[in-house]
């Protein structure tokens, strides 16, 4: 590469690193002041706002330079507000003893009415909550008053943890949400004052830097350029790869589980969010923004890298388009128009919340458009998946449309060689991915049952708990933290290969009913291993190629890279009539060689 180009690359790298460092510094770079007006603005419920205000006197109008101590102080306020409510609304030991005394061994719910007679708010609350949580005890006889007392204390505890916290205090969801929005609103930072400038110093620098780093590749002759990949500290799990993986994992942890710490980052994209949907940015707006930029910039890299292959150019353009239009812009515009947020290319069970009651309600209450969305989503599941997989293979979705696939094929492309090719990994993969599919089906069935019946108990599990577990472990933990965080450690398709329930569904159809296969070219394979090495799904492509057998695998996402890197022109993604699809493992060669399996 000429010297001038090398300089441009270095400048690009410098800019990128600068932008990245600034971005990270911004995480810490704000002061926080809790004010009355912040509280007023962030609380929707004025009673709770004043409760919070009461407990926050020590913190009010104090400057705090650290997001960590600020958040921990906020948590203490919520804690003390809840304590305060327990004092007011909680049922005391004396009251329990009183109830026992009134009932003797046989509990009567009427004793509650006789104990709390007032019409004041507290008495009403106590009466109602005791009935909600304790009426199942009505008429029961106990061996001793102590026994009854124990049962009543159980009810009291339930009232504390559910009724009081939910209705007059702060449950953990509210604490999480409010901590996030209070922190965001309390921040005084240069970012907020000047978000466009900081947007440029971080994202601008990173994008510009990346482009300067990537564009000189255009000077190289076209063709596969994999030189030095296994000597590269980024691409062969060297220190830089491990650093990147760790950073990504940390980022996802914060995003999903501790968003209250990253409000300064979110503020940066407020202007963009306002321009698009009219509201301040949420953390997932920031995430979608970063995601789209990664796909666009690294998609550009992918196109340059494979510019000799029209297949790769079209495929990459397609994922760039679907991410930008379908996943990012259209849903935001829908929100601006007061319509439900909807990603028209996301398909259950990847979109695991499609059947959640909140979303079903939203769609069914949004007129024709809502019903259309509901029908569209169902049609994707029932019609589009099997029909398109039959005609094109699972690639139509996984490497042409999907957002997870889109990120894997662009941002993740430099890491494709890190996937494990062993038979053992294949076995683990089959158990895991089909396990997740089964989990998604059971969870969704439970959710739908709850939607129809109104009862959260299905057989032996609680459908709310199950969806929460799914959301945390599969939706956030697997798809996010592991799915992307592990790019530099285990390759770019960890989620798609081991976890994605939609990939499992597409794969089952691809394996058993499709016209798609990868064919091998007669006897030309030299067993070099490029195809297997660069298969992001960890398919040992060579195993098939060197015995002259078509590759028909449920996991194949049809990225076409095996075909691109093969130095002997052996592999081709083809769609043909189904007959003979699996092929016989035989190589063109000597006459009279008989096939033995």
């Amino acid at each position, binding site marked *: 590469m000429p010297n001038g180009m090398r300089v441009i690359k270095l400048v690009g790298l410098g800019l990128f690193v600068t932008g990245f460092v600034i971005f990270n510094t911004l995480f810490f770079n704000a002061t926080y002041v809790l004010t009355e007006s912040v509280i007023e603005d962030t609380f929707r419920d004025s009673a709770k706002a004043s409760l919070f205000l009461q407990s926050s006197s020590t913190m009010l109008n104090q400057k705090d330079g650290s997001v960590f101590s600020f958040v921990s102080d906020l948590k203490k306020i919520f804690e003390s507000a809840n304590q305060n409510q327990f004092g007011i609304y909680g049922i005391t030991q004396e009251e329990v003893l009183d109830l026992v005394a009134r009932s003797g061994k046989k509990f009567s719910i009427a004793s509650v009415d006789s104990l709390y007679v007032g019409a004041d708010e507290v008495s009403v609350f106590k009466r109602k909550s005791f009935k909600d949580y304790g009426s199942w005890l009505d008429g029961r006889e106990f061996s001793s008053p102590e026994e009854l007392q124990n049962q009543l204390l159980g009810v009291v505890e339930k009232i504390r943890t559910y009724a009081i916290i939910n209705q007059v205090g702060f449950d953990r969801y509210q604490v999480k949400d409010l901590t996030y929005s209070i922190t965001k609103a309390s921040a005084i930072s240069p970012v907020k004052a000047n978000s466009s400038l900081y947007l440029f110093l971080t994202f601008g620098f990173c994008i510009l830097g990346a482009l300067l780093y990537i564009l000189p590749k255009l000077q190289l002759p076209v063709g596969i350029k994999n030189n*030095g990949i296994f000597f590269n500290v980024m691409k062969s799990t060297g220190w830089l790869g491990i650093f990147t993986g760790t950073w990504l994992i940390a980022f996802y942890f914060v995003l999903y589980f501790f968003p209250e710490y990253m409000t300064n980052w979110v503020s940066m994209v407020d202007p963009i969010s306002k321009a698009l949907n009219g509201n301040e940015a949420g953390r997932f707006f920031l995430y979608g923004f970063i995601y789209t930029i990664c796909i666009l910039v690294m998609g550009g890299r992918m196109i340059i890298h494979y510019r000799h292959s*029209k297949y790769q150019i079209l495929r990459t353009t397609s994922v760039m388009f679907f991410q930008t239009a379908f996943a990012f812009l259209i849903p935001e515009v829908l929100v601006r128009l007061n319509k439900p947020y909807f990603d028209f290319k996301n398909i259950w069970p990847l979109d695991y919340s499609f059947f959640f009651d909140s979303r079903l309600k939203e769609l069914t209450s949004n007129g024709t458009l809502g019903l259309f969305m509901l029908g569209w989503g169902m049609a994707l599941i029932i019609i589009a998946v099997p029909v398109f997989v039959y005609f094109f293979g699972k690639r139509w979705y996984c490497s042409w449309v999907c957002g997870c696939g889109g990120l894997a094929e662009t941002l993740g492309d430099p890491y494709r060689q890190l996937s494990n090719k062993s038979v053992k990994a294949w076995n683990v993969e089959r158990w895991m991915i089909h396990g997740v599919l089964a989990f998604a089906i059971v969870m969704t069935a439970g959710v739908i049952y709850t939607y129809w019946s109104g009862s959260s108990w299905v057989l032996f599990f609680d459908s709310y708990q199950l969806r929460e577990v799914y959301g945390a472990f599969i939706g956030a933990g697997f798809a996010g933290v592991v799915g992307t965080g592990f790019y530099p450690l285990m390759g770019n398709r960890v989620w798609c290969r081991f976890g994605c329930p939609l990939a499992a569904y597409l794969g089952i159809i691809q394996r058993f009913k499709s016209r798609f296969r990868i064919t091998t070219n007669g006897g030309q394979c*030299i067993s070099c291993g490029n195809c297997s090495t660069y298969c992001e799904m960890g398919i040992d492509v060579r195993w098939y190629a*060197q015995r002259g057998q078509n590759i028909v695998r449920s996991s194949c996402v049809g990225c076409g890279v095996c075909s691109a890197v093969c130095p002997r022109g052996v592999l081709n993604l083809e769609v043909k009539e189904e007959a003979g699809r699996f092929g016989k493992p035989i190589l063109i060669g000597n006459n009279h*060689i008989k096939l033995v399996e």
Partner: protein
Amino acid sequence: MKHIVIIGNGISGITAARNIRKRSDFRITVISSETKHFYSRTALMYLYMGHMKYENIKPYEDNFWKKNKIDLVFDHVDQVDTISKSLQLKSGNQFAFDQLIIASGSTSNKFGWPGQNLTGVQGLYSYQDLETMEQHTNKVKHAVIVGGGLIGVEMAEMLLSRKIEVTFLVREKEFWNNVLPIKEANLISRHLRTHHVDLKLETELKEITGDEHGRVNAVLTNKGETIPCQFLGLAVGVSPNINFLSNAGIEVKKGVLVNEFLETNIPDIYAVGDCVERIYDLSGRRNIEQVWYTGRMMGEVVAQTICGDKTKYEPGPWFNSAKFFDIEYQTYGRVSNELKPDEQDFYWEHADETKAMHLVWYTNSNAFKGINVFGIRLRHECFDRWLREGRTIQYVLLHLSEANFDPEFFNRYEAQIVSGVIAKYPAVKMEINA
């Protein structure tokens, strides 16, 4: 139970072992002194260039051999005793066999140049060669490669991937012109130059000089030019690796002599792969063919024979492939470097200088003879069938698009090529239309 011993764990020996295992439960032992497990020699370059790790170029996982009861012995065979049917190994062990397959491959040629044993002068054949190359090209600025063949061009690409400048000495008029017709050879020569290979055609190595540490510091060419260098790659062909067979009583010339059943002159001893020299002629084929595919086919054939189904080595129509930097090459049938008097041909080249096709057929019968193709992929299965069926050039042209094996959406050139042929040979046109 019969004990089959195989010397050499390359493609030919391993194919034999695998196919014997599929067909029998004979005891199988494979001996090699190069690496413990079978690896793909053709992928050595990719290790050096960082496209793959050693793990990646092993076609089978390490537990494959145990699972398939193929014993691997990492040792060198010093001598073969054909009378007592045993092998003398370097470690001192003796090894008895019932049947022996010699699959010992090749070694790089050296032609007795002055200075050829200096440090930094080497060929590239074995894993050990790659290790020395790794060691001796560290911090090298300029290298010279001698020998315009496939291994030479691979070495050039390898060195350039490490930013080492390369001067490439080629005896012929154009790169690989002893095999490729001049137009193709010229196409590849041009391509090498776009990759900054300093290609010196019609130039031969005369002498190698070294510094006071015994390391190469320059080469002298037959044109009187001195080219300073710190590494010299010798890629002037390979010869069967049969030194260890001297005095064994097995007949050899350049290679181990075998008949059509791949039997040597000694019963129960066979030979396959690069080390073989056929005592009978196969039309259009040399008697020593040192390519991956022939080794693999011989391995399949000998396995079938040993398992009781005596089979002749009949490799079918010739095919081969290679890659010159960014240009892939495939060939089916025979296209010789000079057109024979009874042949006609058509050469097409794309304006971007990375795609070309060269078709050859017999003038009288119009029978299709062979094709060279660059930058376009063609279906082996089609050409194999057409060559076996003795199809005409008209037939091949009519069906050319069926043979295309390029990925979806790639530009197609069949129409251009066919009309080119018609323009040059109007007679062909009439028959295509008919």
